[in-house]
């Protein structure tokens, strides 16, 4: 008899889990998860640090720049000049348009948060320990000036970042590359390809699959940048780097359409910390005035 009762209970629990998995959208169950997410932090964070120090060297390392030293120094000088010039133009724009207040040094509007680990399973997402307000859901997340994702859920137990490489994530962007501007400097030249759709494909890869193959092969080369050009993101993050083109090939299911593989500049799943863009200009000014008072 007790065995028969257990079978009933187990069967009902199994049915409930199946209904929850296949019929109930994750947003209804996310509040429960945010309560308990951070409980694994005491194990996952030290494990991550240990694994990074012990195994990180066996991961694929970025290819070293084989160019002569003088060429690299010359390019750095040109980029510094371009940044100095653009910073001046930006200051002038800010004086005119209030919407551009958060352009420029984006780090001032971000909070650095350490990463506890990744979501187990096939998803590209990062777990952040700590206590967060649910108001940051949807906030952009960056790493070293590049856009890497958005906060998917947040609560008193932690937060989850859905990376731009995760399955089902769709963004719009532009292709481009840096060229000499003919005046001793460099400029970012966008290609003429319009409206590429950058889809997350999992495993740290994004794919662009809506461009004709001849057009893609003519205009896009491995190493070209893919930058954000999507109105769903804040103005301050437009033209931020999403990744670089790794390969241009034909789609297996549509030979006349290109499949362009795009990879972020870093392995996003191994990041030790990220920046959450959660500050407004008013809060930044408040922080600065508090610092100034403290230093007097």
């Amino acid at each position, binding site marked *: 008899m007790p065995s028969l009762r257990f079978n009933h209970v187990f069967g009902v629990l199994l049915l409930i889990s199946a209904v929850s998995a296949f019929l109930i959208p994750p947003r209804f169950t996310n509040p429960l998860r945010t309560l308990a997410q951070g409980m694994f932090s005491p194990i996952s964070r030290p494990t991550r640090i240990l694994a990074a120090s012990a*195994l990180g060297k066996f991961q694929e390392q970025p290819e070293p720049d084989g160019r002569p030293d003088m060429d690299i120094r010359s390019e750095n000088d040109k980029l510094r000049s371009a940044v100095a010039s653009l910073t001046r133009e930006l200051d002038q724009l800010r004086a005119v348009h209030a919407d551009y207040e958060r352009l420029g040094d984006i780090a001032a509007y971000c909070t650095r948060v350490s990463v506890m680990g990744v979501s187990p399973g096939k998803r590209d997402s990062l777990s952040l320990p700590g206590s967060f307000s649910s108001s940051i859901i949807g906030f952009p997340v960056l790493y070293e000036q590049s856009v890497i994702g958005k906060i998917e859920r947040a609560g008193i137990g932690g937060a989850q970042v859905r990376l731009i490489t995760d399955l089902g994530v769709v963004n719009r962007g532009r292709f481009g590359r840096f060229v000499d501007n003919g005046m001793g400097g460099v400029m970012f030249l966008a290609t003429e390809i319009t409206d590429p759709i950058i889809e997350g494909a999992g495993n740290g890869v994004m794919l662009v699959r809506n461009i004709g193959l001849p057009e893609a092969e003519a205009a896009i080369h491995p190493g070209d940048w893919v930058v954000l050009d999507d109105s769903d993101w804040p103005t301050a993050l437009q033209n931020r780097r999403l990744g670089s083109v790794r390969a241009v090939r034909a789609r297996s299911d549509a030979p006349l359409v290109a499949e362009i593989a795009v990879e972020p500049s870093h392995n996003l799943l191994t990041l030790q910390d990220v920046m959450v863009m959660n500050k407004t200009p008013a809060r930044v000014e408040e922080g600065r005035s508090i610092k100034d008072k403290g230093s007097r």
Partner: protein
Amino acid sequence: MRWLACFILAYLAIGIQIGADPYFRFHGVMPDLILIAVIFIAINARRDSALLGCMLIGAMTDLVTGVSFGLYTLAYSLVAMFVVSTQDIVYREHPLTHLSLPFFGSLLVTAVLFVYGLIHRESGAQTLTMLFASAVYTAALGPVLLGILQRMKRIFAFQPSRRRGRDMD
């Protein structure tokens, strides 16, 4: 069965999976360490305890994933049902058991995830080939990890299976 010991095992397995997953990956293929813990409990514990324990491990895993809550509860429960049904016909200490059970268990989890992906119209780099490779990777780790856990079986105080009519421990 000592439930505290099983909870600690599950906690460690999930914590290690979260923390070190990117570093265990080989060409994008990742092992499922939590499944190893599920199989260990399912093959050693009495039927009722094994099923309930593995279901709870699945629920703990669902707390930290990005998919719908209940998916890994369902997947690991199905794996537990499969493994429990083989308790009387496999040698628990044999390396072949430690190789085959993680492989078939991983395939079962893969099938559940694949059906979920079809229903939610997700497509991309997670092809069946990669999911199968993940099963092979998990199976390759099985003899090592399950071998170590089997040597620590006393900590969990598993009791031999009883006939029908007895209460679960």
